[in-house]
């Protein structure tokens, strides 16, 4: 019975069991409470289970070439953490408003699986993995396999997201930009997160992901391959730019909605790619 659940579980397993019994997990509360205010979201009568008593869900730790970020870590904490790759710190630093970032958690941002979730493109670019816990045990999988569609994940009813793992990155150049209807505190129309490794002026690795232009984050693998397989020199990027932009515009799958148009999102995604590539050449 959901009524019997302890609202303050002290272990991940207990929280997962409560979720399985129909309780709603309360992490930062920002999305859950805003959706309740609009009469939307999950069961309005389901009880909350508060996760802030579970120490294993908290904090950022660095070990063996990877950063573990507890699901309850707030956006504000990540934004100013020296342990986190700057790409992710920057992405988390533009989520909502400052007070919102003090409450909102990375676990919530991932598990909500919104197409405009601001941490997601960076997590895709960083090849992050998520750790999922159920009373039966835990599993780890790439974030791209965890999120399956708008608001949809592979999480089972009795499973909760306990941590995010981000591999330590080498010498990458990061790029992040969020385009929203005003400077800050607004929902994303389109965003880019990207990383590039450059040796002797040649792109050896490049990763590009777009947010809010598809049901989930769009990672531009064909474009990335084209740029790395061809051992593209950064100074030559300008020559192929129209082709790269066209490829990006083709890869994204934006829609028309109240916030913007598919046409705009597609064009801006291509322009954001151009801005990123031009920044690599230093032009």
């Amino acid at each position, binding site marked *: 019975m959901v009524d019997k659940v302890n609202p303050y579980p002290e272990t991940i397993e207990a929280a997962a069991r409560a979720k399985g019994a129909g309780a709603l997990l309360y992490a930062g509360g920002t999305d859950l409470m805003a959706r309740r205010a*609009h009469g939307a979201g999950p069961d309005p009568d389901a009880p909350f289970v508060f996760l802030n008593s579970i120490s294993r869900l908290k904090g950022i730790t660095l070990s063996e070439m990877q950063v573990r970020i507890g699901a309850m870590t707030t956006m504000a904490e990540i934004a100013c953490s020296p342990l986190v790759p700057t790409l992710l710190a920057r992405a988390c630093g533009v989520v909502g408003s400052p007070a919102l970032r003090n409450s909102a958690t990375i676990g919530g941002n991932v598990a909500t699986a919104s197409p405009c979730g601001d941490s997601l493109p960076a997590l895709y670019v960083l090849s992050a993995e998520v750790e999922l816990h159920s009373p039966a045990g835990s599993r780890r999988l790439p974030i791209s396999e965890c999120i399956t569609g708008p608001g949809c994940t592979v999480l089972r009813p009795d499973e909760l997201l306990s941590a995010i793992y981000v591999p330590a990155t080498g010498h990458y150049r990061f790029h992040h930009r969020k385009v929203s209807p*005003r*400077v800050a505190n607004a*929902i994303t129309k389109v965003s880019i997160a990207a990383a590039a490794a450059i040796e002797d002026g040649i792109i050896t690795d490049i990763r590009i992901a777009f947010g809010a232009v598809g049901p989930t984050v769009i990672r531009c693998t064909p474009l990335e391959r084209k740029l790395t397989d061809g051992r593209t020199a950064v100074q030559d990027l300008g020559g192929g730019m129209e082709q790269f932009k066209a490829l990006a515009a083709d890869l994204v799958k934006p829609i028309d909605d109240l916030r913007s148009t598919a046409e705009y999102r597609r*064009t801006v995604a291509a322009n954001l790619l*151009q801005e990123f590539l031009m920044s690599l050449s230093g032009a």
Partner: protein
Amino acid sequence: MDFKQDVDRADGPGKCAGKTRYVRDLHIEGALEAVTIRSTVRRGIIREIILPEVPAGCFFAGASDIPGVNQVAYFRNPCPYFAEAEVAYIGQPILLAVGPDIGRARRLARQTRVVCEERPAIHTLEEALESSGEGGKPPLYGNDNVYVDETFAYGDVNRAFADAAQVFETTTRTCAQEHFYLEPQGVVAVPEGDRMIVYASTQGPHAMRLTVAAALGWPPERVRVRQTPLGGGFGGKIEPPFLIAGQAAVAANKCGRPVRLFYSRDEDMRATTKRHPSRVMVRSALDEKGNILAVDIDLVFQAGGYALSCAMVLDTGLKKATGVYHFPAARARGRAVATNNPMNGAFRGFGGPQAFFAIESHMNALARKLGRDPFDFKANYFIRQGDHTLTGGTYHFHVALPEVIASVKEQAEYATLSAAPPANPGRLRGVGQALFNFGAPFTVDTNAPLPKRYIGLLKREDGVVEILSELVDMGQGLHTAFRKIAAKTLDIPIERIVHHDADTDRVPEASITGASMSVVLFGRTLQNAAEKLKPRLCEPGEVRVLEPVEQPGHLSWDAAAQRGDPFHSYVWGAVIAEVEVDVTTCQVSVKNLWTTLDVGTAIDRRLIRGQIEGGSVQGLGYGLLEFMPPDAVTASLADYIVPTFLDVPPIESAIVENPYPPGPYGAKCVGEPPLVGIAPAIADAVSNACGVEIDRLPILPEDLMRKMREKP
């Protein structure tokens, strides 16, 4: 009292401390909570209302509970408190569900089902105009969907167009703008003995007293309105509070208990008035050299499911349609049309923002087409003292346009500003300007006796002087301005003067607070009252002075013929805007705004600065951010984008003092004017940056990108 010395507002410390009691903060023993049950269809016939079982302590209130008239009596075309047979927009109130707490009231509302037979709805302004034609949808109002259709003209416009070497035409569109006062609408109605006490966040206490009395079918004396501090108004707390006060009073009357009716934000955005969306066509007849021979303007406002105050808003906008110009001939036709959208209404600027965006965009585009400097081009047509208005009246006093323009150019260092390169690569930069005037107050018929209106002063036994006026300080600082005027006239320290929030049992009827008339008109009445009180200040005991409101003698207005001086006085203003456009996203950011305003005499420069900067940022939102679809309402602040701290550039402002003799110490108005010039100036700057003409507000990056791609 030296007007040059800023005076701290009396309500400032309490507001900072959170001690100011807004209507939601009042604790009223035994109060019930009400929730509005609304139409979920755009247009339809109510066939059945299926009520749930009503738990003890809960009840419904609706049209059948209204002892008086089911119409908000304040408006020329009233709207019902509760829909009876038909609904005309999504969100139209049908019933109140009332319960001991908000949870139970909401549950009751959720369990109620209204069965409506839907009818073909009129979604947009264009549909409204077409619906009277063949194959259109059945009109919502009259035969043609037009609530109001009026025309003002002078000179031979038809002849000028017949003679023209060419005709230049622009069409501009604007969308609804949400007031977004921080405090959502709310009232509490409290039955006391045989009276009804209404606590309300309202801009019109006495008008509310009359409308509530009409709803209850009572003499007005039995209703007392106590205005609570307003968490913002901007015109949005003129009309909707009348509606909800009447509803709450009817419910309170039914159950004999106090009833609180508070809107949530999304409900407020969904159901209350907005700025009228508009479409304005401006045509000018030009000779071979590009000189304007005549201007012909067709202005259409979308008014929503009921007319409310659209006649006044349209009328005011129309009288301003030719801007700061006197053309050889001009005609302006205005129509307000009915659509199945929420009602629109009063909003700071009152028809002016739509009209000035249209005329300034037209003049700026024409100057660009002719390759002329916009200031020089426009100067050929400037109104001068003694010129006649669109309505055949006279500009009686000095027109300070030249001084205002010189001042704004000097502030902006205009000569070098235009030539400067963009600060950032990947950006386009542009400078734009707009000129405007603002007529206020409206002239009331001078052929008929004025309605009795008063401003009073009460010298108390303790020597404190209380200003007896119903005029509302909704944040703009009116009470401070009034106290300064009284202090100067009485020649006593301002600390001895108080001005409380209105209580209709204590203060006489004057007016709703709006249309920028409080200082210029009622401030003068106050000055006159103070002059009468001054010689009696030393008398023992209480001394009360009641001064009737009078219109200045220079005015003439024939209401039946709509001829004469439409407004008492005119504020003249100019804005220069500097923008950058990001070529990656086509997002516009405003880098600087400069405004100069002729305010007559400045009563308090700090308050004026507050009005200029606040109005400018509302204008910036109107120009760039605040989008609502033409046939729907955005009900969440996550999607209705208002400016934040980060969207606002440095705003510099200057004042030209061009005293208006009938005003208090020469003062004119300042509340509304700062908003109207901002969006047109930003649009002009974007046009100059991007090489495309802007014809729609807000300037969305989606539209701008399309325009730039289609640019020849």
